[in-house]
């Protein structure tokens, strides 16, 4: 199945792209996506277990299963407002 990873702010700069499609096995979870992303972009994070991921615009646990066509965004610590 295909999942679209999106990167923002610091993570976008580290990866060098805003969106990258990943092919994952059926039944893959957020943790599996994180592993694939880290393999492709080892510089993304020094602590992958703590990466915050939003699936289809909702914050998701690493244990959450993914489905074909999902959008998974890698969310750096937010710093909006003032």
């Amino acid at each position, binding site marked *: 199945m295909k999942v679209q990873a*999106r990167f*923002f*702010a*610091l993570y*976008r*700069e580290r990866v060098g792209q805003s969106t990258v499609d990943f092919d994952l096995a059926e039944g893959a979870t957020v943790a599996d996506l994180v592993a694939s992303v880290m393999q492709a972009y080892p510089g993304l*994070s*020094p*602590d992958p277990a*703590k990466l915050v991921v*939003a699936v289809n*615009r909702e*914050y998701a646990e690493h244990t959450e299963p993914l489905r074909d066509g999902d959008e998974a*965004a890698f*969310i*750096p*610590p*937010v*710093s*909006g*407002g*003032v």
Partner: protein
Amino acid sequence: MLVRVTEDEIRPEVVIDSLERSIHGAVTTFMGTVRKYTDDRTVEYLDYEAYPEMAEAKLQQIVDELKSRDEIEDISVVHRIGRLSVGETSLIVAVASLHRRLGFETCLDAVERIKEIVPVWKKEVWAEGEVWVRSEGA
């Protein structure tokens, strides 16, 4: 009610006029503006970036949560993104309430929640360098 993430300049009167005006007795507003000094650095500008679809959804979630409080009639929130200079407004929250105290409290709570869960990031740029605020090391 107005809930928006935009690259356009924030016009406070438009945001305030968007509030329901049938029963409330107080309008409390907060505007966040770009400050010139962070620690010992002089800021030249800030670049705000958002995950726009999710940021608007999370702003809406915060507004819905806080609007369910007694005495809160309406809430509007606009977050600006893109490049902002010192003194420009990055965020406005406007709360219409029956009385002042809950208006002030709800306005503060809205800003705190925004800083926790809304996917917006700022890069601070000064003469000698730049930094994604709160993100380095993550």
